């Protein structure tokens, strides 16, 4: 039923297998003549992801404790913080990037902002959930010294979840590198723009090279962050 509604015909797909094979063979010879330019673009992409993660971390660092049931100063603040995080999480980052590009102009900055807003929703939720699991005795111990909200968060909250929080941040960084590599599609800088252009111009060799550069970077970041997280855990 869904298939008919979407107007997809798998028969034509099956008949077209040969054509598709031919099509993919065009990616056979990656053209690395512009490699230094690609690497520079990848650098911009990585920098965008890093800044996006930092923005997200700053927002999540301040909103997380407010969205944790055991730390929030009162239930109204808790609900408001929770809903804010939910809303940030629900907005796709590419849509945010479209909006920020329209408002701020082309360049990597709107991309970093979009990544920051979207992933702050995720990171804030992760932080809040970890904070809610903090040992009650620790909280009571710090509370009995007469600590106020800020002191509670800084000395009972964050030290207890430090490892977890860093792990989550690394995971978000990982994810942001992936997303940053496609943000260029909406004009938010980085390698995605180049990929879009070469595909439009049917320069399959260059597209293949770009895809390989993205793939290699993502795999390296993947391994690096897995290694770091293992060290943390």
């Amino acid at each position, binding site marked *: 039923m869904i298939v008919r509604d*979407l107007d997809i015909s798998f028969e034509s797909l099956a008949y077209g297998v040969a054509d598709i094979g031919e099509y993919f063979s065009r990616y056979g010879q990656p053209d690395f003549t512009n490699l230094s330019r690609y690497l520079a673009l990848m650098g911009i992409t990585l920098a965008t992801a890093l800044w996006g993660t930092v923005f997200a971390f700053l927002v999540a660092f301040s909103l997380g404790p407010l969205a944790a049931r055991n730390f929030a100063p009162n239930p109204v603040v808790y609900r408001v913080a929770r809903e804010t995080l939910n809303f940030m999480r629900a907005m796709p980052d590419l849509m945010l990037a479209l909006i920020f590009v329209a408002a701020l102009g082309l360049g990597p900055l709107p991309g970093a902002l979009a990544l920051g807003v979207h992933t702050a929703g995720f990171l804030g939720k992760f932080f809040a959930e970890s904070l809610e699991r903090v040992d009650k005795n620790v909280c009571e111990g710090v509370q009995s010294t007469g600590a106020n909200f800020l002191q509670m968060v800084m000395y009972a909250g964050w030290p207890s979840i430090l490892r977890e929080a860093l792990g989550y941040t690394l995971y978000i960084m990982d994810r942001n590198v992936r997303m940053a590599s496609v943000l260029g599609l909406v004009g938010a800088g980085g390698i995605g723009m180049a990929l879009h252009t070469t595909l439009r111009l049917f320069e399959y060799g260059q597209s293949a090279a770009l895809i390989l550069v993205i793939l290699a970077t993502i795999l390296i970041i993947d391994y690096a962050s897995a290694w770091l997280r293992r060290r943390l855990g």
Partner: protein
Amino acid sequence: MTPVSTWRWPTPNGLPPRSLIISALVLLCALWLTAPIVEVDFVRLFGSIGKMAKFAGQMYVTPDWHYVPQLLRKMLETIEMTVLGTAIAIVISLPLGILAAHNATPHLFVYRLTRDLLSLMRALPELVWALVFVSAVGLGPLPGVMALAFVTVGFMGKFFAESIEVVDPKAVEGVRAHGAGWLQVRLFAMLPQALPDIVGSVMYILDHNLRAAAILGLVGAGGIGYDMVMSMRMFQYDRIPLIALSIYLVVTALDRASDYLRSRIIHGSRKSTFAT
């Protein structure tokens, strides 16, 4: 005794761990170096707040109600793409998951090969594959579904393999002792045990795919993303709030549903283990 400051970390000297300070310093250096690349300029950023406000004001017009039927149609298409892509991926990734679990794989070589294949498949984001598939099979939901299914197989195969790897070997041995064949052991001893885990990861993937499907339209691969980029390009800002709201509602609804289902499954499975 020196008076103890109330602002101290729960470490012997009251300072945060040294490794943390060093990493923070390294990070600050990296940020300082990359700031010009990303064109982060706080003066400009604060200067542009006015521009942002003006821009937000443009969106704050009366929503274009005539657009609602088309919006619903597009949203339905997005949801259908999500469901279809996920369903195709489940069918493909179940056998791959068995091959990629080290206690169920026929040979260690197959295990390594499948694992590497899966990590390659999930390395690139959906949008990159959607771009490639759009230029291969043309515009429309088909390339979107293909891209979703492709990346999802990478993720789901890994999740399936991991949940098969943690099954209780005693049950597997019990079934094998009855003379069950290779396939029977996997189908009747391993899969039923891994099922609650698998349902949990399917819900997670569904959530992820819905978000992905909502933006695939940007490259012409069907779904609501196409309308989003078009109304941005044609300055029909009265549509943007409606699109944003509809995405928010659908994503939140699925989020709640999957939370509920997952807690039901975890609760249910705990109950059944207590009963036995």
